[in-house]
């Protein structure tokens, strides 16, 4: 008992504050953004014109070496750790910098290539990705393989040094204007479910590829259907081994659900704008709005703190697995609620698509988008299955 007392006397505790060098890093980024973020907002990257404007922004970021900050230095990144990444993102949203048109590439395919790619694949694809020459789309879902992704039917059969690809992908984000897509194809005709799938990269200008843009709720083609009609792809475009596709895709989905794409800063900035919207209009609002706005601000903070905690765990060598399902449900519901409140506050302006007063137009666009959060990257129902089965250990059947 006395031993216990003695042992704990020089207790090193959890440190919830930034270091001096982290603060310096923050001012360095802040400085760069203040000089480089376009003063005028770019057109939406789901339009032809906006897509190219955003490609330019990717190039600008790359020139400042701020494009793939978490990539290792050998691939042109800055090897930022996750805490530094969070600081970077906080400054990114603070500066209101343009959205990342190449997020499929930089945050999903990039890390996947580093883990599973050959040296040739890395040198061919990573630098083109970083320079904004290859903008990537995702090719997972099919008309009959949505939440049940193992039901994939599109095929890629090996013919000497090539694959012959046939079938259809859908809900392929950014595919309307992108240069390449990556996805899962059935390479073993006898296989079923998770087995016999391969992870293959396909250039969208290849003969036999037809891209049919699908207008989203805002009218813009944020995703597309991709038809493959005897498309010939070099075998060097397969990542990993034949039949290893599912394993690699799961790693990619892990990155996606993880913190790279859902920076807490995004939701905290929305919460701050919501507070401003509330206080600008409070004289005509009811007490329940004040209450809901307060809850949202607290939730955005709770999300941020949780992500800092997850980042600390990863940095200490832990793996974040199914825990990311908890965040997915949390941020997507929060994002929807914040925009819903904004619509309530805007009232009669909430249908005026081009209204600049109270930033109505931007809130309306965000509200539309917030309906997609609980669906993409695995629906919230699937996430809750994962939480209950893998985290709580409840029976699958």
């Amino acid at each position, binding site marked *: *008992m006395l031993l*216990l*007392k003695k*042992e*704990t*006397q*020089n*207790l*090193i*505790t*959890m*440190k*919830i*504050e*930034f270091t001096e060098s982290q603060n310096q890093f*923050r001012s360095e980024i802040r400085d760069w953004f203040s000089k480089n973020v376009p003063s005028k907002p770019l057109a939406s990257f789901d339009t032809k014109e906006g897509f190219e404007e955003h490609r330019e922004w990717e190039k600008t970021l790359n020139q400042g070496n701020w494009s793939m900050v978490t990539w290792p230095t050998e691939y042109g990144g800055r090897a930022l750790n996750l*805490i530094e990444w969070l600081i970077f993102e*906080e400054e990114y949203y*603070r500066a209101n910098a343009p959205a990342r048109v190449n997020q499929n590439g930089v945050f999903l395919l990039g890390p996947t290539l580093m883990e599973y790619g050959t040296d040739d694949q890395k040198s061919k694809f990573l630098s083109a990705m970083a320079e904004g020459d290859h903008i990537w789309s995702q090719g997972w879902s099919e008309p009959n393989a949505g939440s049940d992704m193992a039901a994939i039917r599109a095929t890629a059969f090996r013919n000497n040094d090539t694959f012959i690809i046939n079938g259809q992908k859908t809900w392929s984000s950014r595919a309307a204007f992108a240069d390449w897509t990556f996805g899962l194809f059935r390479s073993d005709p006898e296989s079923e479910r998770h087995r016999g799938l391969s992870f293959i990269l396909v250039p969208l200008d290849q003969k036999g590829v037809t891209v049919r843009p699908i207008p989203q709720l805002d009218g813009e083609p944020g995703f597309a259907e991709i038809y493959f009609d005897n498309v010939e792809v070099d075998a060097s475009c397969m990542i990993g081994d034949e039949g290893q596709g599912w394993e690699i895709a799961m790693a990619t989905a892990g990155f996606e659900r993880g913190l790279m794409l859902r920076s*807490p*800063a995004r939701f*905290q*900035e929305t*919460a*701050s704008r919501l*507070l401003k919207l509330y*206080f600008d209009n409070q004289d005509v609002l009811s007490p329940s709005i004040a209450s809901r706005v*307060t*809850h949202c*601000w*607290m939730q955005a*903070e*709770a*999300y*941020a*703190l*949780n992500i*800092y*905690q997850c*980042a*600390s*765990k990863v*940095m*200490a060598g832990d793996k974040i697995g199914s825990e990311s399902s*908890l965040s997915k*449900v*949390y941020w997507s519901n929060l994002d929807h609620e914040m925009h819903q409140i904004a619509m309530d506050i805007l009232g009669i302006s909430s249908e005026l698509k081009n209204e600049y007063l109270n930033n109505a137009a931007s809130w309306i666009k965000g509200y539309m988008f917030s309906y997609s959060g609980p669906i993409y990257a695995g629906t919230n*129902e699937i*996430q*809750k*299955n994962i*939480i*209950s*089965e893998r985290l*709580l*250990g*409840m*029976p*699958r*059947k």
Partner: protein
Amino acid sequence: MNFNFSDDQALFSESLQKYLNDNVTTKSIREFWTDNTHFLSSRWKELEELGFITANLDESIGGMSLDLITIALLVEKIGYSGMPEPIAEQLFLANPLINEFSSQINHNEYLAVAHDLAPHPNFLEDSKQLIFFQDQNPYLIDIEKLKIRSLESNDPSRSIYDFEANNLDDATKLESEKNLYEQVQNYGMVMSSALLLGLSKRIIDSAKLYTCDREQFGKPIGSFQAVKHMLADVAIEIEFTNALVYRAASSIQKNCSNATLHAAQAKFQSIKACEIASKNGLQAHGAMGYTWEMDLHIFVRKGWSYKGIWGSRPFVENLVFNNLKKDLPKLGATYTFMDNND
């Protein structure tokens, strides 16, 4: 920036966890219910010998000067156990006051504390002295100088009292540079948050076990999606409570000007977590959950009390809202860990 517990912190809390697992059984809690005026002094003594009760007293008076994050972790374990003894109160409310007034207060005893946010001190009769606030000024008084009346709590594990000082001259006014009223309020909010966090974890664990075990239609009810999603919703709220509690403890420890705001946020979220844990957790137990026999209500009742005291939902929500109104320009993502004085 590092949110991980150190090995020492983990070791210390695991050893408390082990003690609690072995000693604080639901059977022992029910035994306490049959005679609910005094807590087990033998258990108090044991925990004192193990170094837990005095953990955050200054070293000069026999403590270890442990930081508040570690203390919050210990209190979470105490919440999980459902233990009736007011260890959480001693660690969060009494010990910081004993450190400040060590010459006036006997530091080897349980010290009851009353405050507007929790005016009915827990186990007052087991304490020799009481600290209370009159017009937000702190006073110390001997129990024998008080007129006290026992009140019945909805949680039979709590032994609470109404009190009245016969004469304010019987009490000693405690002089301090600090605003002790606000300090005790903040400590109380974080203490109750840590307890609620532990209680919520206990309730979801109980629901998990029950739904994996109980069968209907030939299979465990935990295999049905309606039941799974109900408990997943609980797991989500619990997950987002943890870091808020630790940040609040850290902010108090550092005397950060946002300590009150951070404490209120932690309390709000822990109330939310315990609310949904109680609602969905009890639902998952079906009719069994609504029986006296099932142990679940030990934890639901305790949560019920601590949701209301040391910062009720409307109280903490107002605290947060008033802060937001005041500090609108300093609310973005870059301020999560900043002191407003920075």
